[in-house]
């Protein structure tokens, strides 16, 4: 099974990653993806994602890190990556860096649940 975890440096994303690692079995693959937006430097994103690459290495999980440039809307970018890498299960947190707690689910997570052409795991 091919998993893709969406990372943005938030605690929620970390939860999503941790939960995904509990499900990973032999022969599974973990794709770590982060979407660059204005205000986020590539170096910072690389540093952020490196920690997750490290964790994968320590746990013996085959992984690939993907940093998507071009200041795309994360919703579209994530769906594109899911299609490009033929992902089986997309893993998202409930919300990312946004602190708006009014909604049950952040806008990106919500969009992914509804529109992703694959299974979606919302980690809480």
């Amino acid at each position: 099974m091919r998993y893709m975890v969406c990372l943005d440096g938030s605690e929620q994303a970390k939860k999503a990653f941790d939960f995904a690692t509990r499900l990973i079995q032999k022969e599974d693959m973990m794709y770590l993806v982060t979407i660059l937006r204005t205000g986020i430097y590539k170096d910072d994103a690389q540093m952020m994602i490196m920690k997750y690459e490290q964790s994968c290495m320590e746990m013996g999980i085959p992984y690939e890190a993907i940093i998507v440039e071009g200041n795309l809307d994360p919703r579209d970018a994530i769906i594109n990556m899911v299609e490009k890498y033929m992902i089986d299960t997309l893993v998202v947190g409930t919300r990312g860096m946004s602190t708006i707690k009014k909604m049950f689910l952040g806008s990106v997570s919500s969009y992914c649940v509804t529109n992703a052409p694959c299974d979606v795991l919302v980690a809480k």
Partner: protein
Amino acid sequence: MKYLVLVDESKGAHNAFNMALKIMNKEKDELHILNVINEGDAMENYFEVSKNKSQTLLENYSEKCHKNGVKHYNPTSLVGDVRNESINYCQKHAINMIIVGSRGMGMLSRALLGSVSEYIVGHSPVSVLVVKKSEDEPVAMSGNI
């Protein structure tokens, strides 16, 4: 890990169940299977019919568990609103993850995500896996409907 799969007679439930079998550890993990009979259906004359349907449904799924080597499975039938009952069940049984199909029965075929699944995703106290893919049919590409 303790998994909860919500089942009804839909193909979505079937897919959700199959996914549970795929990801769980059949020796160690617990698979809880819940079918909720709608309160409306449970009224008067229809109650016996609904109860029997539920029973049969759960027996079929239990059979599948057994055939697939699942050691710990727990089928349950409840009457009420599936949304509330599933959330309560999670809390009562310390469930780690709910697995639902993306659409159940009676859904507009154009809806990408059923209202129950959507509710569960938003209100569940635990992680939720929304299963869209099935073994035989490909899922439509996102976007254009």
